[in-house]
């Protein structure tokens, strides 16, 4: 009588071990995975909340610099006004005792300037010729340098003059901005 009961109990224990291995262990693993997933989500939420609050802080700080941002927008206009630029030069040249002899703004109107791909900052070169004295030219260059439009003087040339007045040729450059342009990856040849 003892023997069949022993066989039943041992069989039952074996069945329990097999059931534990095939049912219990995967369940336990699933439980561990879910636990990790919950922890991961908690961390993710915490990180995202922290990041969002940082962005809010940046945004608030940025709003304190509205004037400076407006100056940047002025220096890098999306749609630059060539007429305004020309008026500025006319005014600055005459205010500094120079005479505007010649201008070449042709490249400012060229479609290539607006269409250069991959660069957010578009160069807009132009040239002018002015006549006047050396101190007047220096004053003019000083005003151009300090102008918020960030006008670059690419080259200056002037010949010698005994009378004190001379004509200077200046190649200048201003900029436009294309906010949506992104630098392209190098194209893979087919």
């Amino acid at each position, binding site marked *: *009588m*003892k023997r069949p*009961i*022993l066989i039943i*109990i041992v069989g*039952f*224990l074996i069945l*329990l071990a097999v*059931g*534990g291995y095939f*049912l*219990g262990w995967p*369940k*336990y693993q*699933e*439980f561990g995975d*879910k*636990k990790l*997933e*919950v922890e991961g*989500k*908690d961390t*993710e*939420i915490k990180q*995202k*909340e922290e*990041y*969002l609050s940082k*962005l*809010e802080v*940046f*945004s608030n700080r*940025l709003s304190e610099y509205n004037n400076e*941002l407006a100056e*940047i*927008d002025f*220096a*890098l206009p999306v749609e630059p006004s060539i007429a305004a630029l020309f008026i500025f030069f006319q005014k600055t040249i005459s205010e500094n005792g120079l005479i505007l002899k010649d201008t070449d703004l042709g490249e400012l109107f060229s479609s290539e300037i607006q269409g250069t791909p991959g660069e*957010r*900052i578009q160069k807009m070169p132009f040239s002018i010729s002015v006549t006047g004295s050396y101190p007047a030219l*220096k004053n003019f*260059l*000083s005003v151009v*340098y300090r102008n918020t439009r*960030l006008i*670059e*003087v*690419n*080259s*200056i*040339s*002037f*010949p*010698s003059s005994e009378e004190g007045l001379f004509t200077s040729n200046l190649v200048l450059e201003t*900029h436009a*901005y294309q*906010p949506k342009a992104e630098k392209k990856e190098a194209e893979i040849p087919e």
Partner: protein
Amino acid sequence: MAIEIAPRGKIKLPFWLIVLGVFAIILLIGFLGSYFYLEISIKKMSQEIQEKGTTLTPLIEAIEKKEEELNPIEKKIDDFGELLQKHKIPLNIFNFLEKICLPAVWFSDFNFTSEEREVIVSGHTDTFVILEQQILVLKQDPLVKSLNISGVSISEEGKVDFTFLLTFAPQIFTPLEITGQ
């Protein structure tokens, strides 16, 4: 004839077998308990994950919206900073030449290109000694990266004509280097 049923004798199980049986039952209860506990916990956690997912969605949307608002500004500030760093002060070249020019030296024709930081300047002086001194002054200045002299000749008036090709160090364009203003 009366049939007598023999009384059934009590089955006596050994103690160790009873312990083993009890142990097996405890194990079964433990296994079933754990299984259901895990099952319920998994369901709860799945629900929790779903809820956290719904919490996360508006958070991600808010971040994306904020990034869309801030990224172009950040890019523009960076681009402007880069541009500002490259912004050159051509006036410094004039101030520099005024500063280093010896009293008996006259500079005349002037050509400046900002990209190469190069200046080609012609001039004249009274003697070769003064020209030599002028060259020495230029060579000793740390802002002058290289100096090439060409076109040295004596003019009809007896003056010494020359042409300098000066290449400047990048510092020539930095605001701190403004001199003589």
